């Protein structure tokens, strides 16, 4: 009997392993931002922030904040040597033009068709899409990052999103705290599982059509 315990760190750790040196990556607010902390040594990615910068560095020391230098969440950041700044049209030109290799976003719902919903719960919460629709439509690879189960125990991975979509058929990869999935032929495909969860447990706890990839293995 495996008990589900939320674990955001494993999600961030696994996602960070997709990147190769030179990849341009946009990390969404919240859980996706954590991914930056787990990029393996020797791998140099370039972080893009849609408010208008390339070469996003770590948060500044307290007292060293620059009012003119924030990330897309409005939080103080720094810029690495070789980074640069640009306006919003250029920023989304970079995004929409396919120059971002990976975008990592949070999820309200994601479904087996690669549809993503993460900007609106009608009548309840309407933060707006911000840059998410462009990021999902434009990036080469879209990674949805989410805990596997709701507090209620129901699966965040759905047969069909019921919330308004952020984009249709654009999600390539879903990483939860139980495993890493690709979206293929209208199904989730389990590529790796994270101990203590097993493929059997994952299939049972996913509210969508799911197959276990032939080479599916444990992630270490």
């Amino acid at each position, binding site marked *: 009997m495996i008990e589900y315990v939320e674990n955001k760190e494993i999600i961030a750790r696994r996602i960070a392993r997709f990147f190769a040196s030179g990849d341009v990556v946009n990390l969404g607010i919240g859980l996706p931002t954590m991914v930056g902390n787990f990029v393996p040594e020797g791998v140099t990615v370039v972080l893009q922030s849609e408010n208008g910068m390339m070469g996003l560095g770590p948060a500044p020391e307290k007292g060293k904040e620059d009012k003119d230098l924030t990330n897309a969440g409005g939080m103080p950041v720094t810029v690495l040597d070789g980074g640069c700044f640009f306006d919003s049209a250029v920023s989304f030109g970079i995004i929409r033009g396919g120059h971002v290799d990976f975008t990592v976003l949070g999820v309200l719902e994601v479904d087996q068709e690669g549809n993503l919903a993460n900007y609106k719960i009608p009548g309840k*919460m309407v933060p707006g899409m*911000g840059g998410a*629709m462009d990021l999902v439509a434009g990036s080469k690879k879209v990674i949805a990052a989410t805990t596997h189960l709701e507090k209620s125990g129901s699966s965040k991975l759905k047969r069909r999103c019921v919330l308004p979509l952020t*984009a249709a058929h654009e999600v390539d990869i879903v990483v939860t705290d139980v495993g890493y999935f690709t979206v293929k032929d209208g199904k989730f495909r389990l590529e790796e599982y994270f101990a203590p969860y097993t493929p059997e447990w994952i299939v049972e706890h996913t509210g969508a059509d799911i197959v276990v990839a032939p080479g599916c293995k444990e992630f270490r």
Partner: protein
Amino acid sequence: MIVKPVISAAEAAAKVKAGDVVQLGGFLGCGSPDSIIEALVAAGAKDLTLVCNDTGIHNEAKGVSNGPAPLVKAKAFKTMIVSHIGTNPETQRQMNAGESDVRLVPQGTLAERIRAAGNGLGGVLTPTGVGTEVEEGKRKLTLNGKDYLLEEALPGDVAFVKAKRADKAGNLVYAKTARNFNPIMATACAVVIAEVEELVEIGAIDPDQVHTPSIFVDYIVKA
């Protein structure tokens, strides 16, 4: 070069008439023309349409109210055309109460619509929003097998932008991520007013390093 008038924030605010479409630079308060926003609140601006990335951060508990948030609080806007309101519960309240009309636009589409207005384009074809609610009421065109939405130009009456530095002719240079929507809004409005931190002599800015050419700027406000 022609020297541009330097006016007060209050004089800048007075350039706005009820019903105007006002484009406000800034991204969650970074790069917002704060002195002018304050003056607009003081002037009791009403019935405006806001075009901005967001409606600012409004957090009463923390005492934070940045970007357009003070104007939202003062109910200056009948309509808000923005990409994100998640950091301003007052905007959400006004929207849910039917007190204001909030129109959400994807951030990159907002940028292109403003740029199109400033660049004499009727609109652009973007893949963003295909298959979502953003499609509603829009023309969809297929080019080389890919679907695009036709997004129309979004011009404004007055742009308030914030720059780090201006020369007296009105050439602007922005700082870091405080650039964001400012340069494109400066192209898209009938009247453009730049709030700047530094005002330097003509010739002091390297002509290769100007972000907004002086011809776009009508008035300068020294922050």
